């Protein structure tokens, strides 16, 4: 009896050969250290067979749909397919998203979204005190938005539509390029905003599309800047209120500096907590960013207000920023952000997180170093960094396992059952993510959701996953096209079930619980 899938029982030939190659390099270098510092051997022997196909489909999309399987099989090597996915994802990121018709309002112009929020404020102010609003009305239609939304429920409907978009885009290849859906999740989470924080609510969908998705495979500095100037982030980390103490005192409200965004920009978005900055640097960066705030009537939702800006001298990590003359203005903050975005500590941190998301909870250091090197050499070109990762042996090594997060598993289920169009199934997927602790776009703190097995693979969580698998797959038609990818043990246990209950066991198998 064995749990190893039949195709993995022996390590694939390409990997065995590659191991020899590694040993050979090691021997040549005569120093273990060189393994870390010399460039990572790029696989010239192509990963082959069902194992590599399964791996590529489950990591570069949320799971194997029939279309995706046909596509990968039409390529000579899974790696060719993987690199084509990367190109396709970059191309798609530069085009408008294919939003289902009832979800388009999440991508309205920002002035319109601000207006919707204002109308809700006014409508609520007009409700007589003591009236109980039936908030559940909107909720019951959670994933069906054909009907007109009352002004009273604008914000919550925007939140629900944004969640619906994440389910639509992760589950259907017609709605979204599969790898781009994954990259969007990754970047939204890296620059996390919380959909339940009051003023953030109507903007989360716009943020996912125009920040995370649009810059998913572009330059990292553009991504940071887009996030810094988006109303969702300006509201979420309170930057919109942070002003120079002098300006604050002069105005009616005694407002002043707020360090919240500046700290997380360094700690989470760029350098990382051990990236070499101090409390003093946090404060200086907060001063640099004073005057960055929202602009309800402008197309990008952002404005820099010179009169709220602290124009004194500042120094960030040894970089002195001269007293801002009028012409510097917003450029002062933009320069600081570019400096942080291209810092070696940032390159290392972003590469590590990408490798953790796509390769393993503890990815090989040599891979991360190689990705970081590429990051620095290309001015933070995420596409190039991803290319290094997909070309590495580590990405294809079956030893590098990943456990699916609840959201990942919810999306995988929709794809494996081929029910991307069924909004009742979305509701089940949504409910599972919530109960399992990863409600979609609902993490309160700026660190975003964890995505490692230590966090998600616990006994209780596994039983909730099995509950969901058996429930959502009840009476689902079998997908025998998946069976060649499953282990003997899995097949044996699945076949003992009556046909209409088999898909639940396929979903619950270790092949799909992990990826």
């Amino acid at each position, binding site marked *: 009896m*064995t749990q190893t899938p039949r195709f993995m029982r022996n390590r694939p030939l390409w990997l065995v050969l590659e191991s020899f190659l590694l040993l050979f390099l090691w021997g040549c270098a005569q120093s273990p250290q060189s393994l870390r510092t010399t460039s990572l051997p790029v696989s010239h022997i192509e990963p082959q067979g069902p194992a590599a196909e399964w791996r590529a489909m489950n990591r570069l999309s949320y799971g194997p749909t029939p279309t995706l399987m046909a596509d990968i099989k039409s390529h000579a090597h899974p790696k060719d397919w993987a690199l084509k996915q990367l190109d396709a994802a970059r191309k798609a990121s530069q085009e408008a998203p294919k939003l289902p018709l009832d979800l388009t309002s999440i991508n309205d112009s920002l002035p319109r979204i601000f207006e919707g929020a204002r109308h809700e404020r006014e409508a609520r102010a007009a409700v007589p005190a003591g009236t109980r609003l039936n908030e559940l009305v909107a909720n019951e239609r959670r994933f069906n938005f054909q009907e007109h939304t009352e002004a009273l429920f604008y914000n919550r409907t925007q939140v629900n539509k944004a969640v619906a978009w994440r389910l639509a885009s992760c589950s259907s290849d017609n709605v979204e390029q599969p790898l781009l859906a994954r990259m969007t999740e990754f970047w939204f989470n890296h620059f996390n905003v919380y959909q339940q924080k009051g003023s953030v609510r109507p903007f989360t969908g716009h943020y996912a599309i125009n920040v995370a998705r649009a810059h998913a495979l572009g330059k990292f500095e553009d991504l940071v800047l887009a996030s810094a100037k988006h109303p969702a982030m300006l509201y979420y980390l309170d930057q919109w209120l942070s002003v120079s103490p002098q300006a604050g005192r002069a105005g009616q409200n005694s407002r002043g500096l707020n360090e919240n965004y500046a700290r997380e920009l360094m700690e989470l978005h760029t350098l990382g907590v051990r990236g070499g900055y101090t409390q003093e640097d946090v404060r200086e960066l907060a001063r640099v960013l004073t005057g960055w705030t929202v602009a309800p009537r402008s197309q990008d939702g952002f404005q820099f207000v010179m009169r709220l800006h602290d124009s004194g001298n500042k120094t960030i990590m040894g970089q002195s920023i001269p007293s801002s003359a009028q012409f510097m203005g917003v450029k002062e903050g933009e320069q600081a952000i570019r400096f942080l975005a291209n810092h070696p500590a940032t390159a290392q941190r972003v590469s590590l997180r990408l490798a953790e998301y796509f390769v393993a909870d503890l990815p090989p250091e040599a891979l991360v170093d190689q990705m970081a090197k590429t990051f620095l050499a290309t001015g933070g070109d995420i596409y190039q960094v991803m290319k290094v990762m997909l070309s590495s042996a580590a990405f294809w090594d079956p030893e590098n396992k990943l456990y699916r997060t609840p959201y990942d598993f919810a999306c995988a289920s929709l794809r494996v059952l081929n029910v991307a169009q069924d909004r009742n199934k979305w509701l089940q997927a949504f409910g599972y993510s919530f109960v399992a602790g990863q409600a979609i776009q609902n993490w309160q*703190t700026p660190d975003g959701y964890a995505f490692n097995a230590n966090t998600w693979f616990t*006994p209780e969580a596994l039983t909730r996953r*099995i*509950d969901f698998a058996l429930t959502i797959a009840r009476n689902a038609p079998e997908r025998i096209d998946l069976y060649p990818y499953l282990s003997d*043990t899995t097949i044996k246990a699945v076949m003992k079930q009556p046909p209409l209950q088999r898909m639940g066991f396929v979903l619950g198998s270790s092949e799909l619980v992990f990826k």
Partner: protein
Amino acid sequence: MTMKSERILSNRRQAILQTLSMGAFALPGISAFANTSSSSGRMVLVFLRGAYDGLSMLVPHGDDRYFQIRPNIGIPKPDGSQKTALALDATFGLHPACAALLPLWQQGVLAAIPCAGSPDASRSHFDAQYHWETGKPGSSSPSAGWLNVLSGMVGNGVGLHALGVGESSPRILSGPRPVQLVGNGLSATRAGTLSDSKTREAVLQLYAGNEKMASAMLEGATNRMSTAAMLKTPSMASSNEQQAANNGAGSPQGLALDAKHLGTLMQQNRQLRLGFLSSGGWDTHINQGNVTGLLANNLSNLANTLIQLRAAFNEPNDVVIVASEFGRTCAENGTRGTDHGHGNVMWLLGNRVHGGKWHGRWDGLDQNQLNEGRDLPVHHDFRGVFAQALAASLGLTKASLADVFPGFRWDDSLDGIFKA
């Protein structure tokens, strides 16, 4: 259960299975531990993620500088009404939203330590929480949570001794020892599909040869059946996931409901001696309010939670501890909130607690007394506070305390916070 799949299970997992097959899953601790647990207490930690503003809950009204540096968010000097701080003594008062706690203070079972915290200077939530939860300030190396380590020292070292309610996998409970984790809100009350023995058997076959999956599945199923059996009430069973989406975590009632579940479960299973609860929403950078407002609502919820816990943990050696990863700036910031600080107030609740007073060093709010001129200093390492509690409540020796908190030093300036 097939013979094959049974063979692969470790002894611990077999014990779980045996309990299951005997149908005694709801009673594992009652018979085995009732006689041994009466002599030593239980400890519950309520962890407030996001750094709660201790200076709003324990108001230093005796210090005029408090009102100077918090012109908008300060809690006014006690005047006997509910619109000001409730005087505890000449130095401190209680936030009026915590009025429910005043009787506990007066009964002498509630105490505060105003300047406690981590010796590490980090103002990162995530770093600081990691230090608190591993019990190793300053170290970011992978490490088990200290409640997990501790659970292995409780009782005879067999079985489950630690329970977490709410979070899917808090760091403080993670590690090599099995612990019981219960979902937040109403999800805790559902036993799930694996409560059916045929389904369990079928899934076990699915995981045949994979000991990790098989044992995790069985452990989870057992825990959930036992939890659901203990918590089941008619009103809870009728809810659905959509309501959970609205009314679950994050709602003002969330923490109190989790506390209620924790109390019930630890009451019924006396093998459980360590409890963990947490809540978010304490990171009040803007408009935190004062007597009323955002923070006041959270504090009121916390007070209700502590009342719940007091009812469930009132045996001689039980102790409940409230803490947060660090404190907030003493002065309000430019947006009527507070930024990340350093030292903070910890609370202790229990019959052994030398309550009705605050303990440890307090030098006031003069700028030269503050950490970096802006935050409460850390006069008392959090490990020193926990060590006092673990010694008093669970009877841990100083030698075993060193295994929970490697390298910590016993803080004898806190001797006396627990009655002998």
